[in-house]
């Protein structure tokens, strides 16, 4: 194995863009746990290819390309799953994801403000699902509701957040 001395800039970029890479991967995979695993594979791959990276060029674009191939590999290995992103769909989604991630910070700030505006009950639901990582069934038990009802409730909360974010982004564009 060839040892390559990593520059501070490279390390900074690698750490700084982890969340954007995660967002990109999740967009094309859809499953949070799997997206985390793929991110780690991408990180390893980036480190192996560090000598191919030209300092000063667009790190995120370069890393995203590596991620794209890892994602393709993920879907290939998935074989005949119920849901499948084929190459053409991956290409389309990738283009859209790059555009969406361009406004990453703006979206994140908007999301935070939107979450703050949610009623406490809805925030609690998100905490259970995202922070405590409870399954739908476990959440349903704590709310004394059916799993289906919780899925529906989550869907409404997310759509409310989505609308709120879009509205804020639109306002910022004015």
């Amino acid at each position: 194995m060839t040892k390559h001395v990593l520059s501070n800039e490279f390390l900074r970029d690698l750490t700084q863009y982890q969340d954007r890479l995660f967002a990109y991967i999740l967009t094309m995979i859809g499953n949070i746990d799997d997206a985390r695993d793929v991110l780690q594979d991408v990180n390893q791959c980036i480190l192996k290819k560090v000598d191919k990276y030209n300092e000063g060029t667009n790190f995120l674009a370069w890393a995203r390309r590596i991620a794209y191939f890892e994602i393709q590999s993920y879907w290939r290995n998935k074989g005949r799953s119920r849901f499948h992103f084929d190459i053409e769909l991956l290409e389309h989604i990738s283009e859209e994801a790059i555009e969406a991630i361009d406004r990453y910070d703006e979206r994140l700030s908007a999301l935070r403000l939107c979450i703050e505006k949610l009623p406490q009950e809805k925030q609690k639901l998100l905490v259970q699902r995202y922070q405590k990582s409870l399954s739908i069934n476990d959440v349903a038990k704590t709310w004394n509701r059916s799993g289906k009802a919780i899925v529906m409730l989550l869907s409404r909360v997310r759509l409310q957040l989505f609308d709120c974010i879009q509205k804020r982004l639109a306002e910022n564009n004015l």
Partner: protein
Amino acid sequence: MISSNFKNLHTSKDEDDLPHLVSMFFDDHLSDADCNKLQLRLQTDPSARRFYTQYAVMQSHITLHFNHGLDYETSAKSKPLYSKKRFRALETMTYFSIIGIAILICICVFGLLQFAQPEVQDDSELFQYPYIARIERSEDVKWQDEIDRPVKTFLRDKDLLSMLEGEVEVRLKSGTTLIFHGPSSFRIEEDNISLSLGKLIADVTKKAIGFSVETPSGKVVDLGTTFSVTVTPEKKTEVQVFRGKVNISIFDAEGTEFFSKFLFANQAAEFEFTAKEINDSIFSSIDFLQIITRDYAISDFSENNILQENIPDAVAAGLFDQYEDDHKVFIFPEKKNILLESDVQAAISRPGTYQNEREISRNRDTIPDGTRVDSFRIYFNPVGHPQNMVTVQGKIHFNRPVIGILTSNEQLLKTSSLFSSLIVDSPSRLTFHSSNKTEKAKRQHIDIISLSDDRKVITYKFMTYGKYVDDLRVLIESER
């Protein structure tokens, strides 16, 4: 405008089930039929793809937002670096593959795997962007958003946090320690805190010089220091500097800086929300108790005590009329961990209350040679008129037992060469302690000094005239 792209989705929400399908997709609750439906939609409808993508980015944001602490040490349910499934897969990998990857990662990336490791030596390796800080201590904290943030929770860059009550200690990636007192509201960044309400104490490491605290009308820039910033509900900013120096700037309504000043150790300043100048105010070291307790063998003291790290030369030399204040009793840390090479006479070393010259200032006890001690000077010098008596009282709690209190000029003079930095560094320096009043209380019986049963608390009541000082040296056991 982006939202207009989804007009068809939004105006016909009742009919269009795309948002619900996407949501179910992320919850892994799609039926086979729904899977096909979503897949077909994404393959054929660009607008649906755009919606899906932006929804997915939001999903990643929510995931990150609610995982302030990707705390792999404490929560089995939090997301580990690898999923459980991946861990099972990893078990099947060959030993050499794992070792090879581990070495590669350990050598190349500082910290990518640190989340999974409970103990690390270098704090900066713990943090992986966007996590830039970690909660180190939390006492009775109530967060406004009701999210549980236990010790070791990681905080994200630009996290906006509000505490209703309690005290939380946060360590930044740089090693800088921040202590917030509730109620407070703040936004946290790697090298900047925006404090809109409450009190923040910052102990900034050398590598973080330039760290700043922004308040509603000003900015405090660290220049290698320990300082506190308080923002009141009226948006007034108060700044106290315990160590080093800071630069304070105030801004007009347009955000243009129009006044700035430096503030040095043991100084304080304040400015109103609409202020055009920065006013001096009274320094108090009580804000810095956590830092003091960490660095010295003192666990608490009354508010009228000022712990000042650098003893002024004049005070060290026992000169008169220096540091005059009718209300403040100064505590000056002196040398630490000094090995006594000969016996030292002490006036007080046993629990009890002592209240006249005969009780206070006689050499009744001996601290034997071979003892290791830390020394503190306690100094009260009132401005007061020579004819008017000034009274001050308070307590000092040490976290190790007091083994001797030295009160007489003779005791102070004899021991300055051991404990006073000034005299240790310049042995020829002349010292006086000529104005020490405790001896002069012979006929007046006007000071009271108590040492608690566990010998860790000194309670004092000094009553003195303006022409005298109360000057004590307290020796405590050194840390073993």
